[in-house]
């Protein structure tokens, strides 16, 4: 018996009970639509995070204090707050020669800033002149912190876009004096907005790092009487040299921190690629988690189909008996009912895919998240629906196939 014949029989049976067929596939429709929409939105979120990280420069190494993440039962035991020092920066500045564009230290802390009646807490970042290029900042007005500012420990500040607006409103901040933790700083520049990307300078106030150590950060920036830093940023001139530079920096710091070979490093060297993969693994986990929830609704939909097919087999017992009487074999009956279930679930799958794509597009149009619909996700949803049909159709089809022809014919 031909496959198309089976499809014809299946479609006729499904048309015979239109309302029931529609209700039956509703579970699959919702499940598939959820999977497709979630994956599209998840992919979109990942893509936007990726692009925001890459906009920070793919040739940047960030060195920060702290032990490497440690998995397993020992995790959290040897956790003591480690520090990085200004001397570490000086060491790297002296030790790293090749492939380096710039090395800059960063110290940041939160203080109250005040102008007129306006006052709020802002992140104050102590930087050097090269910081601007390392982080690819663009100055909108005035200038960035200069080496001269650092040398003279000038009381100058450069504002992020958001801070400038919040503090000065429509006034031009250039030349104005604001107070940071009660100390007067003169605004010499405002940065262009980088939007909501990772490491965006919009909410920050930049001051010369030397000025910070001397006049602002005080005791809190010291540990064992040594100046500490939050990060050391290294800009590498060739992305292929990232690993080499990373290894060199690691070697220099380990030696300076007098670590034994068996000891874990008390600092992390992260490239943008590392950050990216960490974040990607987070979004991936999230997507899988949400997908699993959608998968559960698919499962429930499958059970719904199985339930209806069992009812259908019972209702059509006499028909099955007749088909057997006129020569249908067990396998032909099995195939017929299996195809009927698969037709239902695939139909639900197709409608669900259309609905899911519609939802994803609605998200894009509304501007919430630029969803990314991939053929992979659609194929996966389709074949999952197909598999649900086969899996949940098998039992009712076997029930139908194993009916005794005589008993089935007599069934009332």
């Amino acid at each position, binding site marked *: 018996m031909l496959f198309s014949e089976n499809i014809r029989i299946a479609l006729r049976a499904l048309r015979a009970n239109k309302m029931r067929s529609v209700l039956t596939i509703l579970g699959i429709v919702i499940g598939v639509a959820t999977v497709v929409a979630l994956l599209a939105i998840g992919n979109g979120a990942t893509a936007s995070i990726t692009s925001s990280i890459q906009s920070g420069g793919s040739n940047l190494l960030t060195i920060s204090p702290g032990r490497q993440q440690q998995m397993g039962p020992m995790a959290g035991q040897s956790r003591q707050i480690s520090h990085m020092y200004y001397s570490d920066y000086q060491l790297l500045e002296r030790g790293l020669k090749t492939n380096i564009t710039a090395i800059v230290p960063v110290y940041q802390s939160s203080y109250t800033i005040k102008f007129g009646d306006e006052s709020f807490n802002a992140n104050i970042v102590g930087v050097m002149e090269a910081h601007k290029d390392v982080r690819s900042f663009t100055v909108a007005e005035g200038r960035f912190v200069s080496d001269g500012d650092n040398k003279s420990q000038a009381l100058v500040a450069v504002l992020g876009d958001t801070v400038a607006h919040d503090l000065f409103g429509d006034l031009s901040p250039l030349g104005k004096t604001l107070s940071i933790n009660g100390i007067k700083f003169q605004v010499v520049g405002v940065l262009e907005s980088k939007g909501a990307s990772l490491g965006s300078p919009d909410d920050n106030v930049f001051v010369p790092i030397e000025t910070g150590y001397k006049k602002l950060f005080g005791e809190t920036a010291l540990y064992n009487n040594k100046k500490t830093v939050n990060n050391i940023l290294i800009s590498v001139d060739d992305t292929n040299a990232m690993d080499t530079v990373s290894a060199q920096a690691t070697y220099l710091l380990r030696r300076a921190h007098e670590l034994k070979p068996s000891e874990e490093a008390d600092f992390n060297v992260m490239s943008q690629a590392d950050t990216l993969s960490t974040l990607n693994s987070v979004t991936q986990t999230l997507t899988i988690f949400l997908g699993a929830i959608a998968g559960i609704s698919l499962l429930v939909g499958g059970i719904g189909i199985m339930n209806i097919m069992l009812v259908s087999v019972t209702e059509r017992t006499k028909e099955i008996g007749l088909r057997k009487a*006129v*020569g249908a*074999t067990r396998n032909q009956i099995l195939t017929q009912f299996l195809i009927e279930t698969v037709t239902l679930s695939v139909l639900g799958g197709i409608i669900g895919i259309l609905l899911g794509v519609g939802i994803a597009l609605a998200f894009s149009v509304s501007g919430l998240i630029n969803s990314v619909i991939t053929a992979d996700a659609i194929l996966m949803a389709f074949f999952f629906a197909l598999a649900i049909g086969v899996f949940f159709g098998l039992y009712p089809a076997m029930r139908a196939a194993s009916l005794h022809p*005589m008993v089935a014919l007599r069934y009332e």
Partner: protein
Amino acid sequence: MIHAEGLTKVYQMGESEVRALDGASFTIEKGEMVAIMGPSGSGKSTLMSIIGCLDVPSSGQYSLDGVSVESLDESGLAEVRGRKIGFVFQQFNLLARTSALDNVMLPLTYAGVSGREREKRARAALERVGLGERTHHAPNELSGGQQQRVAIARAIVNEPTILLADEPTGALDSKTGVEIMDLFQRLHRENGQTVILVMHDAHVARHTERIIRLSDGRIVSDESNPNPIQAGAPRNDD
């Protein structure tokens, strides 16, 4: 043609055993028209299901065209049913919302006959039962007599060895019943079709040439009926 020897069928009903058939033996030759009669519970339905290869006997031998049926497995039985048996039921058992033509084509579908050939043969079978004009009507658009004709067309479309009818007139009024009996007689007379009718109505049974009576699972009489009632000329006003 059909040879049955000591057919016994035992059903397990909870604790007790029911002997629906208890050693029935008979032979039916090709081209015979036979009625199997008996009151309900006499075992005639069980006998019909064994003759029709819907079931196998608990013991005894049954051969159809020289093929021993009790040794066949399920798919073997299905194949024999598809090729050698044409069933007609009291309640017609047509597929609802399905045209007469599609109903008649059903056995050919399972037998793997190709689409065009299938339709040609189904149309021919409908012609033979006098429904050549009503091929696209669904069962609910046909009268009881017409529905039974469709069922008969479905039964003969595979040119079966045996046309096996279970109370074919039981759901019809007497006039329509006569027409159906006439159709059976015609198929028997014109094509030498072997016809086996299972029924409890003695008058209808006298349309056949041989009457086998069953009681309590045994054959109590098996006699020829030399002058069967002729149902008469076909009428077209059903």
